[in-house]
């Protein structure tokens, strides 16, 4: 017990890390499921529905498949780098989540404040850390492409490193506007700065003054994460599978997870910097909106029970109603206990916004065609960069005016 008290901080942090990892990995898995489903709907298909009810167990199956597939190492690869690359990619992607704050006030637990982020909330350079990690995440792809000792991966690696370096500029610059408005690198401060006028609600967020910045940022971020329409490093139509052509089974899975994790990170960033993080879109005075979570969860749970009973497979008839019950009960709890209710607000809104962004990602994947490489480059250098610079100039000018030329 003394040991616990002595190193409580350390332990708590470790626990938080473990928890976050579990959650994120699960979310990643089901993100794939979600993506496949949505894209299928867009293409009016069913998507996965064999494994488990509504294909809910598909991710698990995929995971097993990755684990048990043969893992060949091609001839003449540079072994160290070849093994290092996926590790690097995954590690960096996961690390970037560490600085994300999911909620403002701590959880009181045995006399310890447990903040909803791994790093302490007063981390002054949260954003810088994020950018640093993003900057480093080039190496995963580039090295993978180089070490595979094969031409398609090499090309993929070259492309990705060029692309990432180019778009990183726009990425960083487009945020400067937000930083100027919050004048801090601290993510928490950035969110708080958007709540200066609680009665305004959604209209106090940065998205309105920084719309240009947001567009630049989101575009650049999509490019940074090598997603459609900027997924040239892994353009299957020209480069087989791009930088991870030579990677199989779990090493491939690492890249996969890294990509989806960075998607999540970017969504979190957008939420924090432009969409007021955990802030509720409604004016603070509307307390009844606090029941919104339950108002969503309970009906959803009930629908799930109802639909589950009528599901064709036995397994589904057992699983789905149970799941529905859990969700409904959860909603009920939120409605009943005001303390829990008020605590859950912030994470709820945060996750909701993140979910929206993830949906946008999938949406784009389903709809947009891929850029051509020269288009990509010229777009990054000739459109994105200048626009974001202009944005910075305008913002700072306005701020200067506001402050009365001090």
């Amino acid at each position: 017990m003394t040991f616990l008290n002595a190193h409580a901080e350390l332990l708590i942090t470790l626990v938080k890390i473990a928890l976050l990892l579990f959650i994120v990995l699960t979310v990643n898995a089901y993100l794939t499921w979600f993506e496949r489903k949505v894209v299928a709907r867009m293409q009016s298909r069913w998507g996965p529905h064999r494994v488990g009810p509504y294909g809910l167990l598909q991710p698990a199956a995929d995971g097993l498949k990755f684990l048990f597939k043969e893992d060949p190492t091609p001839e003449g690869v540079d072994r160290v780098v070849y093994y290092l690359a996926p590790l690097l990619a995954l590690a960096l992607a996961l690390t970037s989540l560490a600085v994300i704050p999911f909620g403002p006030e701590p959880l009181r637990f045995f006399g310890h404040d447990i903040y909803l982020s791994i790093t302490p909330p007063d981390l002054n350079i949260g954003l810088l850390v994020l950018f640093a990690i993003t900057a480093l995440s080039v190496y995963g792809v580039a090295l993978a492409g180089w070490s595979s000792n094969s031409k398609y991966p090499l090309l993929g690696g070259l492309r990705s490193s060029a692309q990432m370096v180019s778009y990183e500029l726009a990425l960083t610059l487009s945020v400067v506007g937000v930083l100027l408005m919050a004048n801090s690198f601290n993510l928490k401060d950035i969110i708080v700065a958007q709540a200066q006028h609680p009665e305004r609600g959604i209209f106090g967020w940065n998205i309105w003054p920084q719309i240009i910045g947001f567009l630049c940022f989101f575009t650049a971020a999509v490019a940074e994460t090598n997603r459609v329409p900027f997924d040239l490093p892994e353009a299957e139509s020209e480069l087989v599978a791009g930088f991870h052509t030579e990677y199989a089974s779990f090493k491939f899975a690492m890249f996969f997870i890294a990509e989806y994790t960075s998607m999540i990170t970017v969504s979190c960033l957008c939420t924090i910097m432009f969409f007021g993080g955990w802030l509720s879109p409604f004016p603070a005075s509307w307390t009844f909106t606090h029941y919104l979570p339950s108002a969503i969860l309970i009906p959803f749970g009930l629908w799930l029970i109802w639909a589950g009973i009528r599901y064709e497979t036995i397994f589904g008839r057992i699983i789905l109603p149970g799941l529905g019950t859990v969700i409904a009960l959860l909603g009920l709890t939120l409605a009943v206990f005001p303390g829990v209710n008020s605590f859950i607000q912030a994470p709820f809104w945060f996750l909701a916004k993140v979910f929206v962004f993830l949906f946008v990602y999938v949406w784009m994947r389903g709809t947009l065609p891929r850029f051509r490489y020269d288009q990509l480059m010229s777009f990054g250098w000739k459109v994105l960069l200048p626009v974001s610079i202009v944005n910075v100039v305008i913002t700072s000018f306005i701020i200067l005016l506001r402050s009365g030329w001090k």
Partner: protein
Amino acid sequence: MTPQLILFIVLAALSVVGALSLILQKHPIHSALSLIVVMVALAGLYLLMGAEFVAAVQIIVYGGAIMVLFVFVIMLLNAGAEEYTNFSKLAGFAGVPLGIALTGFIAAAIARSAGTAQVSGSAAVLAPTRTISEMIFKDFVYPFELTSFLILVAIMGAIVLAAHKEE
């Protein structure tokens, strides 16, 4: 053995090892990777000293831009492992002891100096990021503008150099 000291020793060892492997590795990519290790370790040291902004910039610019450029060029030129030529051995023979001697000199100079000052590790006290920005835009504004001009020139130079000649 305060935790800072432990951290310092670890990071210092990391950086030195990285530098050594930069020398010993035959392949440029490996050298580049070891250099990246050194840089990250140095960033850690900066953090340890409370210079968090410098640390971030170190990683973003050095790690994220410059070294990426190096790796990119190495990949582009498909540079192979180094080859030995006669003169290089001689330079090595001359250079290694000389470098060691240089290091010894500097180290000795520091040893002679009466420096026992402690680095204040508390970042929050200094809040450097803000102060640094103020210094840059107030005291060092002319050097700052000069560097911007330098970058402009460098960009043009790089374009001129690397641009393909129109036949």
